Structures are given as C-alpha cells and as structure tokens.
C-alpha cells in the first residue's frame, strides 16, 4: 500500500486539480476577509472590525469543494482504467479504496487549512483581534477537521461506487447540495420559536394581531425534536452550520467529532464493501 500511496500522492501534487482547489479555498478566504475589512472601514464602530464568524464560514460551502475535487480526481481514475492496472500488479481493492480515501482526505484537509490560514494571515494586519474566546475557536477548529474528514469520506464512497465520470460529477454535486440544503432546512426547523409574538388570530371573526404570544404549531417537541437534533448533529451539512454560523459553543459539542468519526467509519465500511464486490472496467 506504501507504493500506492506514494504514487497517488505524487499524482495529486503533480496535477492541476489539487492546486486549483487550494487556490479556490485560499481565494475564498481572501475575498471574505477583504470584504470584512472593507465593511469595517466603511461602517466604523458597527462591529465589523473583527474576524469573528469568518474563520469557519468556508466550511458551509466546503461540501461543494469536496464534491468537485473528489469527483474529478477519482473520476479520472475510472475513466483511465488505472484501477485494473493496479489490480493486475497485485494490489487489493480494499487497499485501493483506502489509498484514495487517505489521499483525498489529506488533500481536502489541506484545502480547508488553506482557507483558515488565509483568513488568519490577512485578518492579522487588516482587522482587530478575535472577540470570540480562543477556547471556542480551538474547539471548533478540531471539530471542523473532523467534519471535513466525514464530508470527504462520504464523497469518496459515492465516487468509488459509480463508474461513469460524468455521473459521478453530477451525483457528487447533487449530494453536496442536498446535504447543504438539508442541513439548512433542519436548522431552520429546529430554530422555529416556541411561541409566536405577533401571530394573527381571529377575534369576532376579524383577523387581528394576537395580544399574547401563541404556541407555534411548527415548533418541534419530544421524539421528533430529538430526531431532528440528531440529524443536525450527525450530517455534515448541519455540522458545518453549527461550526460556521451559530457563533456559540453547543453544550454537547463533543457529539460533532464523535458523529463525524461514526459517519466516516460507516461510509468507509460501506464503500469498501461495495467497491470490493464491483467489477472494475
């Protein structure tokens, strides 16, 4: 497997795709920080002068980056038929699967770090220091690494199990968008207030604003709320929102890396099992 790894890493660093991904994530970090610095300059004293909230916002879009990178990188292997060559020279299918998982995990982690590095590097001279406690940033940093690994593992599973490069690309993009939108929908559902302050009620047959808060029928309770909370913590789309956008450390923050590890393990087991049973072109 050592030979496989070194050959695949060599291909990764020699190809344009990885560097385009690094450039895209680094560029995104630069644009976000410069836009914040511009806001801080124009809207003085309005709380835009710190990089709070910028550091992990890239994670909310990272599913798209992982989908594009994994589908094109792994899809090229499908199209070129190199896996068959590797099998012929004695490598096992599980070894091949784990090699690609390792290489793409390293690549996507580096892209994520490129975003964070650019934000930190540019915000130091352009903006004031963080107001967010360092502990929170550090905890979220490690959680974000686990989320990136889980996102990548999920994408690798999909990309390794489909043969056609174009179908891989479309499926990976659809999965990324589905996870992002799903995460957002679940987050919105969980954020629905328990009581509505200015609900319209019927008083003497006339629609009028209610004088008292009324219970919100869309507020989730009981087992349904627990299930949605589980989905929010378990799926990478929900995790990215918790880390990137909420700006506060949840009580059960330990659930995020645990669920990421579980998702990585399950998708890798499923993917490796499926890949082993596949006929390679």
């Amino acid at each position: 497997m050592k030979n496989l790894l070194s050959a695949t890493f060599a291909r990764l660093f020699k190809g344009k795709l990885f560097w385009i991904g690094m450039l895209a994530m680094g560029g995104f970090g630069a644009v976000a920080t410069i836009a914040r610095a511009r806001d801080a300059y124009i809207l003085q004293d309005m709380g835009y002068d710190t990089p709070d909230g910028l550091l992990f916002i890239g994670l909310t879009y990272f599913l798209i980056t992982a989908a594009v990178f994994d589908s094109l990188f792994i899809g090229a292997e499908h199209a070129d038929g190199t896996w068959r060559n590797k099998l012929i020279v004695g490598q096992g299918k599980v070894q091949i699967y784990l090699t690609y998982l390792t290489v793409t995990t390293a690549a996507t982690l580096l892209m994520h770090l490129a975003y964070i590095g650019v934000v930190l590097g540019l915000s130091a001279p352009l903006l004031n220091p963080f107001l967010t406690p360092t502990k929170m940033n550090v905890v979220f940093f490690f959680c974000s690494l686990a989320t990136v690994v889980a996102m990548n593992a999920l994408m690798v599973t999909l990309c390794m199990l489909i043969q056609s490069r174009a179908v891989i690309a479309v499926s990976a993009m659809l999965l990324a968008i589905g996870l992002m939108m799903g995460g957002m929908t679940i987050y919105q559902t969980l954020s629905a207030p328990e009581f509505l302050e200015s609900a319209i009620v019927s008083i003497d047959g006339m629609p009028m604003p209610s004088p008292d808060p009324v219970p919100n029928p869309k507020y989730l309770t009981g087992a349904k709320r627990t299930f949605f909370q589980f989905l929010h913590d378990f799926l990478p789309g929900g995790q990215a929102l918790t880390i990137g956008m909420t700006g506060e450390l949840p009580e059960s923050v330990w659930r995020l890396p645990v669920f990421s590890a579980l998702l990585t393990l399950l998708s890798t087991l499923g993917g490796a099992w499926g890949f082993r049973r596949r006929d390679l072109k």
Partner: protein
Amino acid sequence: MSNLLRAGFTRYLKHPLTALVAVASLIIGLLGGRNAVYTIDDVYLIALFIAFAAFISLFVGREHGEGGFRNKAVTGYTKGQIFLSEWLLHTVFCLCLLLLFLIGFAPLAQEALAPVPARVLALITLCFVMMTVAVVTLLCTLSLLVSQRAVSAILSVLLVIGLLFASYKIEEALSTPQYYYTSHYDEQNELVWEEQKESPLYVEGAARTLLTHLNYAIPLGQSEPLIQCIGVWNYDVSWIDEHSYSHLKIVKFFPLYSLGLTITIGGIGYVIFRRRDLK
C-alpha cells in the same frame, strides 16, 4: 435540420435519464405546491434548474464523448445547425419539464394561487417560460463549449448556484436602506435623541440602475419579484401601502429581459461553437 431534431428527440425519449428528470421535476413541483404558503418558495425553482443542469450537461456531454457532433458534421451538417438543433431540443424538453413541475405545483398550491387574477397568473407563467428558455440557453451554451463531460456537468451545476448567489448579493446591495439611525440614551437608559445618518453602503446613481437591470437580467434575480407577485394577492391588502408594491410593475418586462439574455448568450455561444474544432 429536421433530421437532426427527429434523431435527437428519439434518442432523448429513449434514454432513462429523461424519465428520471421528468419524475424529479414532477416531485419538485409537488413538494413546492405542498409547502406553498402565500407563494412559491424559490428553493424549488433552484432545484428544478439544477435538474435542468444535470439533464443538459449529461446529454450534451455524451454527444461530445461519443463523437456524435463530429459524425453530424461529417454527414454534412454545419456547426451552426448542430448548435441550433441542440438548443432547440433542450429548450423543448426543459419546457416540458417545466410543464410537469407546474402540473405538480398548481393543484396543491391552489390556496395561494386562487386569489391571483388570471391575467397576472398568465403573465407570471410567461415569465417562468422565458426564464426557463434563458436558463436553458446558458446551460446549453456552456455544455456545448466545454467538451469534457464531467467538467461541464460540474460547471453547469455551479453556474446555477452562482446565478443564485449573484442574485442574492445584488438584492442585498439594492435593499440596503439609504439612512440608518443611531440612538443615544442617558444614564437612566432613556432615549435622548436619535440621529439619522446616510448609509455608506447605499447604492445610488448609475450603479443602482446598472445593478437593478443586471438583477432582472439574471434568471434567478427575477424569481423574487415573481414570487412577491403571487404573495401580494394573499396578504391583507388593507394593511399595505399600495406604493410598497409599485416596483412589481417591472414584472411585465421580465420576458424581454430573458429574451435579451437568450439572444446575447445564444449568439455568443453560436459564434464560438462555429469556430471550434470538434473532437
């Protein structure tokens, strides 16, 4: 060119992807209708356009990959004819998919659609039809110009997401208020005075005009006013100032914006495709 079109229709109708995207469009419409409160949520339009992106990029990419375009050129068809036939095929198919979406959407969203006058509904439908034609032109041109199937599939989906973000950003810039207020309180936390300041982020003059037209030219930029056009008939109008919705009068010009975009992008694509070497 009729032979090209006939062959294309047969090929597309026989492919399982067509049935899959048709079912997806119907399901998106059903979900959109089921969740319609006052109006349609634009997330369903985006889902529909992503389905279009997958459909167009996979079919055009297949032609690129299998050398279908070169074969057509060898049998005497010009590149212009090939471009036009692909555009026409995808436009017709995507309009059929839009119809399926509306068939799923309309019956379930009857509560939201019932108060809207028929002529307004007809105008909104026309706007959606023209918006679809503009989106198909963008996607078809992109897929015809990028010969790598996987790359064109990714770029097509990214294009739809890009259009969405572009329209959100422009909308955000245009909706920044001209003035903002800062309140000053005394030691008892009582309001002493309020100061009105001009917002430095307010977009005015030529930039505002340009951004407004750009927003209406972007297909997904049109969706917000169109959605409001349905929603406004469901609100209690006695509470609303009539002038609050005067900006919706622009909606009747949306088909022209879409037509302009279709002609511009289609024209550019046509010229570039004719100059390209086919694999």
